[in-house]
């Protein structure tokens, strides 16, 4: 067998923001993620694709601490994340967007962004928190980026589905994470919203590493530096979009049966 080493640590590259090594998780005997290796460079936008049940969302859950790994290691900026709780991982600089828009419906767009500002995160910190000029400026800057400047006073429940997705991205941006993980950010969006989102992600991806789960191949091509194909909890192929799309095993998985 002359298999290329997939998911092995590439050499002579930039520094990595995220090292995932030997990551395994099993739910009642079902192995959802199996000995996975994944390395994301600083400033890289990595798109993760794969058929349903490939373990894409589970990988994000593992990185952000929502699911605990059975074994393996996740290191971010030389910090081991596997033993940390969710809020500690966020404070270390990892942001996570959920698949369905997860926003605070009863608060206004402005309040949604304000409570996401990374200051006053303890009980007494929150009591002492004041909306200083820098917070207001940051809220307005982020609102501009996510196309919601004119909606700041609206209750978030009145936003369209696409706007809710943007708002959640904005809530992550408030925290200025060094690694941002997005689970199907354009699901349910119109064509024009998709284009704007691609533009937004390309822009915010300049300053940070991103991992994006996506089903839409065209969208993935627009934003990806590199693509990882997951299949049955393992890396099936990795490389440029063209490379993975022409990989016979990827074609087999997607079209084979």
């Amino acid at each position, binding site marked *: 067998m002359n298999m290329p080493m997939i998911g092995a640590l590439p050499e002579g590259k930039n520094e990595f923001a995220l090292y995932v090594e030997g990551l395994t998780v099993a739910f009642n005997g079902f192995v959802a993620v199996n000995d996975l290796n994944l390395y994301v460079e600083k400033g890289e936008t990595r798109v993760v694709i794969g058929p349903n049940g490939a373990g894409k969302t589970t990988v994000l859950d593992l990185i952000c601490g929502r699911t605990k790994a059975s074994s393996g290691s996740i290191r971010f900026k030389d910090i081991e994340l596997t033993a940390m*709780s969710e*809020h500690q991982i966020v404070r270390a600089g990892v942001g996570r967007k959920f698949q369905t828009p*997860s926003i605070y419906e*009863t608060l206004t767009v402005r309040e949604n962004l304000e409570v996401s500002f990374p200051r006053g995160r303890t009980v007494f910190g929150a009591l002492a*928190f004041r909306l200083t000029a820098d917070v207001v400026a940051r809220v307005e800057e982020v609102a501009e980026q996510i196309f919601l400047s004119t909606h700041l006073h609206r209750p978030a429940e009145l936003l369209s589905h696409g706007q809710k997705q943007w708002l959640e991205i904005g*809530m992550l941006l408030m*925290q200025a994470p060094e690694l941002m993980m997005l689970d199907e950010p354009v699901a349910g969006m119109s064509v024009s919203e998709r284009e704007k989102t691609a533009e937004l992600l390309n822009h915010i991806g300049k300053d940070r590493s991103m991992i994006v789960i996506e089903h839409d191949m065209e969208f993935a091509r627009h934003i990806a530096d590199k693509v990882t194909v997951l299949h049955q909890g393992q890396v099936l192929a990795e490389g440029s979009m063209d490379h993975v799309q022409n990989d016979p095993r990827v074609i087999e998985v997607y079209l084979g049966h």
Partner: protein
Amino acid sequence: MSSFYKNVLGALEGLIGLGILAALVFAVFPLTLDVFRLNLVGKYLSYAFVAIGLVMCWGYGGILSLGQGVFFGLGGYCMAMFLKLEASTPQATAIQSTPGIPDFMDWNQLTALPLFWEPFKSFVFTLLAIPLIPALLALVLGAAMFKRRVGEVYFAIVTQAVALILSVLIIGQQGYTGGVNGITDLKTLLGWDIRSDSARVLLYFVNGALLFSCILFGKFLLSSKLGKLLMAMRDKEERVRFSGYDVANFKVFIFVVAAIFSAIGGAMFTLQVGFMSPSFVGIVPSIEMVIFAAVGGRLSLLGAVYGTLIVNFGKSYFSETFPEVWLFLMGGLFIAVVMAFPNGLAGIYKDYVRPRLALHRGRTVREAL
């Protein structure tokens, strides 16, 4: 200062709301009611502490506690123990086989004051114990459950179990607690006769002042970022957690605050009514207190006070006028309110009264132009 006015007090509307309630509590009731009725209102207002605590932890924080009577009772019992010891001087209890201990202990063949009663000889200790003992219990309960992410329904059930356990414990340990009768015959506070008319009026005002302090403190909490986070947690707890907050700490905090409010109410209840008994600790009173908050509107601190007053007025009116069927009438009232106005009285104001006020104001402004 202006942001305090706008955010904490709720600008003109909030100030008027506070002003109306203050006028009712501090002027209308004292001027129109005799001392007996005023004392009754004072008793109701001591339940309002529990209701405003529930607005904060249930209405805003989404944590339904069906055991707030526990904290009300602990606050009340702390005060009652102090008063009982003061009333049990060796002279006053000379006919007992062991003079100098509370009468119910003597009846239960106790010959010495139990150790845990000793500190309640000190008034300073009692004043500290009233908020701190319930706070400690809420902290332990809250930390044990919220850190483990026990769900809302399970939390409600556990709090109910705690209410049951405490009332059973109090009733069972008659010699130490006064049993089902509670701690009765409380006479003086530091030598001051709390059963005199003048004392009752003064205690009514102290109670009112404490209630307003708690309301203002509650408004301050809810207007801070912490208040927004509570609402955010109620909507999407995961999102708050993944925004870098330790959700459990916030829940524990608001649960502790609600417990302290309840305890202050309990202590004021004991002072005004002159006794404390397990019938204010168990499941039924705990659920009644949730009803006060629900009728008033679980998202409104002032609404909770009105809800408490109205339900209790209704209770005493119906029970005096229709002694056979009053419970059914009360039940009917609750069902009607919850079915027709899920956000309680405050919801009626918000949905029906406020839009009309705004309309009216708009019209007068137009006419002025």
